[in-house]
């Protein structure tokens, strides 16, 4: 074994890149919060959709979620990782150029997202809406980040990798796997594509991705930041380093399995649902292990909670983390999911995590970093306290109102009277009931945003008072080649082995869960008793995706008495087998649409889309009047249908060759029907006709209707 050959060396950290990421984080936090507030207000007061296509709820909500996750949280993570990694490894980042490409590339991606999402370029998969050119850019920039990070590990002066770094490694490895697998898509234009996955397959891949985006973009990197910044701020080591090891491996191994808890009671095979539920419940243990490890780090220093705003934010963040990770497993229990799923309870749950955990931890980090990076003192501790209480109040208001709204609506949907009839057969009744809670939520959001603005002012004054901005130079001891260590100690020294082990840990769950569903698909496709959508319906479906109807409507009826009474027989696996992408949805601000076809005449849909209030007085759905003006893109249909055919949807070569003509014919007959029913004339080339054709096809594609006795209903 080598004897210690450590020597003193000087190292100058690249703090300029940290400052850049930090400021970008704050700018985009403002954008994300403001978009969220506007979206919240739109649900409380529909006229705020303003009949502007690019500002309407269905397009604004993806902008909000993507901005919050990738722009705000993303830049926060990068700021923290670049700052702490250099210090933990006692070396400058591997390459300043790669750092710069990473920074500017990421901001460019954000700008591309901020332009393309309002324009309606969307893949229709939550948190993965960005279209294929941006997906490729994300992959490239992520690889650059990875090279820079692992390069830094390779030139480190500290042999041992502190626990925060493991969380960063797991993040980098897993996000790459998730993003690539979920984004395999075939373009049909320079800005549009269809995913190769379809139906139940797409649902499983998407929620494996979606759930683990929460796990490996909003949890593991932030836990890494917590393990670094909490000990720094409290000036004491983490409570138990051993617990952190258990925490890490437990979390990474278990998290990856939990995705199917988003699909309970859907047509996903039962075994996959069970797997998702069990692993979600198990997840409670490592999550709380981590929270306790963080909180107990403050043992003997609780007085800091009174005096130090940074500690205050961190403790609150950990507490919200504990709350959210308690509630998550709870919501994964099938009987709880039966009430909570599709409601605003889930939205409340997410925001306890996003605002409380990610938001507050990022704020703590910013308050810690800004004075250090600009070599000055924080302008005002008092304002930081004001920020804390405004934010705290905002989160509590938000959370309580959404849980109340969710449970209220969930119970109303399920309420069945003595004669076995729905107590609230009109869906809109259940919406009207929770609108006051939407106002309360928006108020909560406004408080949170207000607190954030106080922070911006505080940070601005702090930076303005700074006279010197330079990179920090420190004298460190190079322990790179000291004793080799054993066991986990040696493992920590071995970056490659460690990364591969992490990769294996996440692949075990991924493969067991996803593989069978992939092959299941080809099996169903052979026996499916389903016709694919006609070309016009495909055009309509793409409008449905572009307008983000899926953020308010599900297309998946659960096997429960109340759902069958309200919407019809439960959805089957076959029905969505040709859906690239699947549109099962996750939230029902409006009713399920899986079987809305033929429920209303075409004219009803026409009037409803142009002005929902004209047929449903109290509706909060946005108006889509531009669909009457805009023209359907018939020409691209040949390309679209051909891509779908290549993906295995059973279109004949003639259908591909004549897709546009077939669509025009069908459009004529729909337009005629609308006119015959008393609507306006000459709509055949308008988008609204394509959309109506699609809506009328929903639930109508079965070749022979199933005998009803095959339907199983559980409650």
């Amino acid at each position, binding site marked *: 074994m080598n004897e210690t050959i450590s020597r003193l060396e*000087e*190292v100058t950290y690249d703090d300029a890149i940290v400052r850049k990421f930090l400021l970008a984080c704050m700018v985009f936090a403002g954008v994300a919060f403001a978009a969220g507030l506007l979206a919240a207000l739109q649900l409380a007061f529909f006229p705020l959709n303003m009949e502007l296509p690019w500002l309407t709820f269905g397009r604004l909500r993806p902008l909000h979620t993507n901005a919050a996750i990738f722009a705000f949280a993303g830049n926060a993570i990068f700021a923290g990782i670049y700052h*702490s990694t250099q*210090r*933990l490894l*006692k070396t400058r980042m591997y390459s300043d150029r790669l750092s710069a490409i990473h920074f500017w590339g990421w901001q460019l991606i954000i700008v591309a997202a901020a332009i393309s999402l309002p324009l309606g370029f969307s893949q229709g998969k939550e948190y993965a809406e960005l279209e294929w050119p941006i997906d490729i850019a994300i992959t490239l920039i992520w690889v650059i980040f990875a090279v820079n990070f692992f390069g830094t590990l390779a030139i480190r002066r*500290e042999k*041992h990798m*502190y*626990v*925060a770094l493991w969380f960063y490694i797991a993040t980098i490895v897993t996000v790459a796997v998730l993003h690539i697998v979920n984004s395999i898509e075939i373009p049909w234009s320079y800005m549009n594509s269809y995913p190769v996955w379809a139906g139940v397959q797409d649902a499983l891949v998407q929620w494996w991705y979606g759930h683990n985006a929460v796990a490996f973009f909003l949890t593991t990197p932030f836990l890494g930041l917590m393990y*670094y910044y909490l*000990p*720094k701020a409290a*000036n*004491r*080591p*983490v409570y*138990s*380093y*051993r617990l952190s*090891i*258990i925490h890490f*491996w*437990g979390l990474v*191994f*278990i998290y990856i*399995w939990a995705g199917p808890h988003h699909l309970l009671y859907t047509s996903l*095979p039962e*075994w996959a649902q*069970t*797997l998702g539920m*069990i*692993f979600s419940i*198990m997840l409670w243990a490592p999550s709380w292990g981590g929270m306790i490890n963080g909180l107990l780090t403050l043992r003997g220093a609780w007085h800091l909670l009174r005096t130090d705003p940074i500690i205050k934010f961190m403790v609150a963040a950990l507490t919200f983390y504990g709350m959210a990770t308690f509630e998550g497993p709870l919501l994964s229990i099938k009987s709880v999911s039966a009430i909570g799923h599709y409601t605003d309870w889930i939205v409340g749950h997410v925001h306890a995590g996003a605002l409380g955990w990610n938001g507050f931890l990022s704020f703590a980090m910013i308050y810690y970093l800004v004075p250090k990076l600009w070599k000055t003192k924080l302008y005002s501790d008092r304002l930081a306290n004001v920020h804390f209480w405004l934010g705290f109040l905002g989160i509590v208001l938000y959370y309580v109102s959404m849980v109340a709204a969710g449970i209220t609506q969930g119970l109303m949907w399920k309420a069945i009277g003595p004669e076995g009839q729905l107590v609230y057969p009109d869906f809109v009744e259940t919406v009207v009931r929770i609108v006051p809670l939407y106002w309360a939520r928006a108020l909560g959001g406004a408080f949170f945003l207000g607190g954030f603005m106080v922070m911006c002012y505080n940070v601005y004054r702090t930076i303005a008072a700074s006279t010197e901005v330079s990179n*920090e*130079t*420190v*004298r*460190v*001891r190079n322990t790179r080649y000291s004793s080799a*260590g054993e*066991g*986990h*100690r040696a493992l*920590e020294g071995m970056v490659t082995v460690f990364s591969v082990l992490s990769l294996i*840990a996440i692949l*075990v*769950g991924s493969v*067991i869960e996803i*593989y*069978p569903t992939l*092959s*299941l698909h*080809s*099996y169903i496709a052979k026996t499916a008793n389903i016709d694919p959508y006609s070309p016009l319906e495909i055009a309509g479906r793409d409008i449905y995706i572009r307008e983000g109807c899926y953020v308010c409507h599900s297309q998946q009826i659960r096997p429960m008495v109340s759902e069958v009474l309200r919407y019809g027989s439960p959805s089957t696996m076959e029905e969505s087998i040709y859906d690239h992408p699947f549109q099962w949805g996750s939230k029902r601000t409006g009713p399920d649409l899986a079987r809305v076809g033929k429920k209303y005449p075409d004219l009803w849909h026409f009037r409803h889309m142009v002005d929902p209030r004209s047929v449903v007085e109290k509706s909060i759905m946005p108006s889509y009047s531009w669909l009457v003006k805009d023209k359907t893109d018939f020409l691209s249909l040949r390309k679209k249908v051909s891509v779908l055919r290549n993906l295995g949807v059973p279109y004949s070569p003639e259908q591909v060759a004549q897709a546009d003509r077939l669509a025009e014919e069908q459009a004529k007959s729909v337009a005629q029907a609308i006119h015959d029913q008393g609507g306006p004339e000459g709509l055949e080339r308008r988008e609204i006709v394509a959309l109506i054709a699609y809506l009328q096809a929903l639930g109508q594609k079965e070749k022979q209707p199933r005998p009803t006795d095959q339907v199983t209903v559980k409650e």
Partner: protein
Amino acid sequence: MSGFLRQVYTDTDLTAAGLMIFFGFFMVTLVWVYLRKGAKAHYEAMGRIPLNEGDVCE
């Protein structure tokens, strides 16, 4: 082949297998971290890494 794999993979016993894999993995980690000799001092030193970041040069 694919048919066979499908049969194997969709077996509900797989849930149990997954649990067992995890449980085994977890126990090994526990033993490794808590029961090996001499580990305590090492882990305490590890925990102090963020607090020993060298001296700032002026």
